[in-house]
């Protein structure tokens, strides 16, 4: 098997034994990356940086005691600032922007010896569930069952597609309403959104600051544990990052969940839920029950209000965060006509630079924050958010260790099939994922099976705050029981 298909764990072991060099591993990924252009996953490639880092990793490995990520080639979502490398957040308004600084997450990865292959496609400013709002055009799902091209999901669609197609060993993603977990499910890979505050947001282009959280997208639960350990931790540059010790997530993967209580939220059993999703969920319960866990029916009564709450709070925060794109300090500035003043510069720059979905969310956010509507929409949403969080707190207080739910309401859909007429149709993709972001909880998506069309379906496990280690152990049990090994047939 070509080395680009390996997991982080197997590559780490082979690198340490000297069975492969980081340069060879990197070359295998660069070759796969170049052959993968049909997926439109990598949008800025950094082969020279990758080989420099790989050579340094080999030297470090030869010296011994290298960290787990040393020599591991990864892709980086276009949302993370990488010094000197284009960082556009999938937007034309940041065309040409090359940050003079490094995000904390990528600094930690490079510090641990990881290798940067390039930047990955995404929905513009992480606003989307299909990758179609990207200024680069959509990334394409490597899974294909007919003549249609399928979405890899979003917003971290390029990350999911690249990992699923073995263009890299792992990738960074970010998750504001499901943007790690939904694409992971659509592409048949693993993705974890950590507890809010576990991973620094510094140097990650902001969408909705009270919801955004970065995390790994990988080929296995073990890989997610390894990579999360490398990127997590307190950062003085992010005042919301938690000053808590980072546990050894990999060591927590014992496979023993005997006696644990798994909550099954009844409100997640939606009217009209496809039979295949319901059946998959039931199978997941059986797997955890067989492993000695107890399945418990729970209620999260405010679940149905999570999506509307999200679509008030996220656009409100976005309208404020994205005010910085004004054509003054970085990125695009519109060509001005004779007599245009600074207001025209702002208005033309933002009209040209932002795509339609981003414009809509900025305007929706501006509306809910404007005089006369602030209490009716924004403040009300913040109150409902408190109730959504309380639902989870009550479940955990009653002894629930983790919650099992579907990740998405369907398998991957065709590019161009959703949200054309009504943006709300696309929003419904986040129905199972968005609750966690509002409550700040960790959640992991694990591929569990294929649907009747032959496309991957995932289940999601939700954990207690700061207990990613225990959560990943639950996911590990699910992964082993499901035995999902299917790979997309190469067509690209």
């Amino acid at each position, binding site marked *: 098997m070509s080395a680009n298909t390996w997991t982080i764990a197997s590559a780490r072991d082979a690198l340490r034994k000297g069975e492969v060099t980081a340069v060879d591993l990197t070359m295998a990924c660069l070759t796969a990356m170049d052959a993968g252009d049909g997926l439109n996953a990598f949008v800025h490639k950094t082969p020279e940086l990758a080989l420099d880092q790989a050579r340094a990793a080999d030297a470090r490995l030869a010296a011994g005691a290298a960290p787990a990520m040393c020599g591991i080639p990864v892709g980086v979502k276009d949302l993370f600032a990488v010094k000197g490398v284009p960082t556009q957040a999938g937007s034309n308004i940041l065309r040409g922007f*090359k940050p*003079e600084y490094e995000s904390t997450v990528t600094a930690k990865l490079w510090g641990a010896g990881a290798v940067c292959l390039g930047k990955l496609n995404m929905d513009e400013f992480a606003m989307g569930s299909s990758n179609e709002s990207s200024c680069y055009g959509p990334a394409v799902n490597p899974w294909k069952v007919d003549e249609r091209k399928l979405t890899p999901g979003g917003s971290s669609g390029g990350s999911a597609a690249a990992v699923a197609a073995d263009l890299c060993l792992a990738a960074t993603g970010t998750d504001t309403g499901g943007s790690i977990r939904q694409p992971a499910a659509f592409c048949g890979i693993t993705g974890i959104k950590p*507890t809010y*505050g576990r991973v620094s947001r510094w140097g990650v282009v902001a969408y909705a600051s*009270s919801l955004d959280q970065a995390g790994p997208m990988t080929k296995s639960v073990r890989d997610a544990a390894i990579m999360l350990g490398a990127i997590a931790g307190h950062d*003085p540059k992010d*005042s*919301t990052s938690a*000053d808590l010790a980072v546990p050894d997530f990999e060591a927590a993967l014992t496979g023993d969940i005997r006696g644990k209580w798994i909550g099954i939220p009844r409100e997640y059993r939606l009217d009209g839920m496809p039979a295949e999703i319901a059946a998959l969920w039931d199978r997941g319960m059986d797997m955890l029950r067989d492993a000695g866990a107890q399945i418990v029916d729970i209620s999260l009564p*405010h679940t*149905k*209000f999570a*999506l*509307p709450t999200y*679509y*008030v709070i996220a656009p409100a925060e976005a*309208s404020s965060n994205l*005010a910085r794109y*004004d*054509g*003054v*300090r*970085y*990125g*695009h*500035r519109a060509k*001005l006509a004779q007599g245009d*003043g*600074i207001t*025209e*510069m*702002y*208005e033309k720059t*933002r*009209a040209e630079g932002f795509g339609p979905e981003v*414009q*809509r969310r*900025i*305007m*929706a956010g*501006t*509306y*809910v924050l*404007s005089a006369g509507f602030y209490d009716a*929409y924004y403040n*009300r*949403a*913040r*109150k*409902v*958010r*408190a*109730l959504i*969080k309380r639902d989870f707190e009550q479940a955990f207080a009653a002894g629930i260790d983790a919650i099992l739910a579907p990740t998405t309401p369907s398998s991957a859909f065709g590019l161009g099939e959703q949200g054309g007429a*009504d*943006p*709300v149709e696309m*929003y419904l993709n986040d129905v199972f994922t968005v609750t966690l972001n509002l*409550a*700040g909880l960790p959640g992991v998506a694990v591929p569990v099976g294929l649907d009747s069309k032959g496309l991957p379906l995932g289940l999601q496990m939700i954990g207690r705050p700061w207990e990613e280690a225990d959560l990943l152990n639950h996911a590990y049990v699910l992964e082993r029981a499901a035995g999902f090994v299917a790979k997309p047939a190469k067509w690209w």
Partner: protein
Amino acid sequence: MSIDIDTARKVAKLSRIRVEEGDLLALADKLSSILGFMEQLKEVDVTGVEPMTSVTPMRLKRRVDVVTDGDQQAAVLKNAPDAREGFFAVPKVVE
């Protein structure tokens, strides 16, 4: 509640995004759809509930009031669309 053309024009102005007159109706339609979705929140009884301000109850850390960074004028200006003589340049704002 639906958004009319005048409201759409006002919101676009507040957002500093230029929207052509001919596109306002379509924009108003899409914003109305999003707003209609938000209306569901009116069903929730929020009496006595404090609005959530922080995901994790935490007191923001304070740092020592010293200079930790700075003197990076060239780096700060490097990505500016128009920088002159060490400043960001913009169209005239005062007569």
